[in-house]
């Protein structure tokens, strides 16, 4: 099969998933509204702190807003395409993965478009926050227009990193079946931590967030260069390298995990 036919198949599966969800319009609307509500309340938690205290350890309101926005948008990108990777437990518990394994395509490619999520709320909110923080910093001359393409670039590398973390975490499910608890640690806790500058945390914790579960590479490290001119331009290509390395490692782990799949009822 050519790359083009893969792509068209993938697009077809995504259309199918949207069509399936549209069968339940009320549910779809309810889920969308609640997802937006959750997102807003998460944002308010950060916004209130910023509103009340202004800066956190030398990071201005706009800078913290930027950290939050980049993380939100990277996560949104990851979850839009690969929400089902995050929900692999469901497939492991009821053996639905069997079906996907009988399809003539890579399992991951069959899994991902099972449920395509339209995350309009997150996009709007992340986009708004990004616009607010970037325009604030441009107004004060902290950053120039070049920050815009750089930001889009790091959102993409960030999404790849988050996807890799998510995939590696989900892969543990082939041994443990239950993964929610681990996800809580590697996805939710780690991501929430990186919404603030990592200097807030003790050394051991920030090291974990940069190396073991590298969420710091999604927003914190690139911000050091883009917003504050620290490190150097090499950060940007290095991020792409790191993202690809994470992806390669987690794909390798996933392939290995698949051979340990136990199916159900046995």
């Amino acid at each position: 099969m050519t790359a083009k036919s893969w792509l068209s198949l993938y697009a077809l599966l995504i259309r199918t998933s949207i069509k399936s969800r549209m069968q339940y319009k009320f549910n779809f609307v309810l889920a969308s509204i609640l997802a937006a509500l959750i997102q807003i309340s998460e944002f308010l938690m950060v916004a209130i702190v910023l509103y009340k205290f202004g800066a956190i350890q030398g990071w201005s309101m706009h800078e913290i807003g930027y950290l939050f926005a980049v993380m939100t948008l990277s996560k949104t990108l990851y979850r839009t395409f690969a929400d089902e990777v995050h929900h692999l437990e469901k497939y492991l518990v009821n053996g639905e993965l069997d079906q996907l394994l009988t399809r003539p395509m890579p399992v991951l490619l069959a899994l991902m478009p099972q449920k395509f999520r339209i995350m309009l709320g997150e996009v709007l909110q992340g986009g708004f926050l990004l616009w607010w923080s970037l325009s604030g910093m441009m107004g004060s001359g902290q950053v120039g227009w070049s920050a815009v393409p750089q930001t889009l670039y790091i959102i993409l590398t960030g999404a790849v990193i988050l996807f890799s973390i998510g995939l590696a975490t989900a892969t543990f499910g082939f041994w443990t079946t239950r993964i929610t608890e681990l996800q809580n640690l590697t996805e939710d806790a780690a991501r929430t931590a990186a919404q603030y500058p990592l200097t807030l945390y003790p050394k051991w914790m920030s090291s974990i967030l940069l190396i073991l579960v590298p969420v710091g590479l999604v927003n914190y490290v690139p911000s050091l260069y883009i917003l504050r001119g620290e490190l150097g331009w090499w950060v940007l290509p290095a991020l792409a390298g790191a993202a690809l390395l994470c992806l390669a490692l987690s794909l390798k782990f996933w392939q290995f995990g698949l051979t340990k799949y136990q199916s159900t009822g046995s």
Partner: protein
Amino acid sequence: MLYFTLASKAYARNLQYRGAHMVHNIASAMFGFMYACIWIGLGADHALGEYGTQGMVGYIAFTQAALWISSFITNGLGIPQAVRTGHISLDLMRPVHLFSHLMAKEWGQIAYQFIYKSIPIYVVYYFAFSLELPGKASDLLFVALALAGAAYLSICINYLIGASALWTTESSWLYWGNHAMINLLAGFFIPIEWLPGWLQTAAWWSPYPYLLYVPTRLYLGFGNVSYLWGTLFWCVLLTLACLLATGFLRRKVEVQGG
């Protein structure tokens, strides 16, 4: 004692998953640790009101531990799953009221979480942050009452969320929506008095402050015992709502046959 049996079975059922729960405890402890670090960072440059930095760390430690009593309970008390599998019609046929039946189970769950989650997590914080325990026994009694009330309120809220599963397949979103509201309005990360005025008003019109903020204030010794009247008021109101919801639920199941 049927209810006691239900509760102790629910408690025992959890014992099998202690391995997974250990990982969960680590995650939960990390969350609280992270929030505490944020407040320590903020406290370096700002005065943190009547709490002070150490007070805010104590605040976070307590809310994080109390979360396992008044927030992270079974999604919809398991009703959504019963609806999906069709078990709900069986449950409704039982000679016990659905609400009290599920509630008894949930108390077992909460007892388990209190012993295996809240306490270990708090002990970790106690040593990590050199926290202080409240001095007076009478204070602890009020905290216990406030927590029990919070657990009950949480059971009621989840019962209502569960009941909604008969009308929508996406009720798990309500569960997470409820979580988001707890994070914001129950004073989980930010004490309610620091919210903007309109949010404070909204919070006090809801039962959310009684889930975390009130027990925490009482525990830290800032609270006023008269808060407990609010807890009682919401307990009564939500109980009525649950009984009403059971009526609707029953009718719905009878109409569509589970």
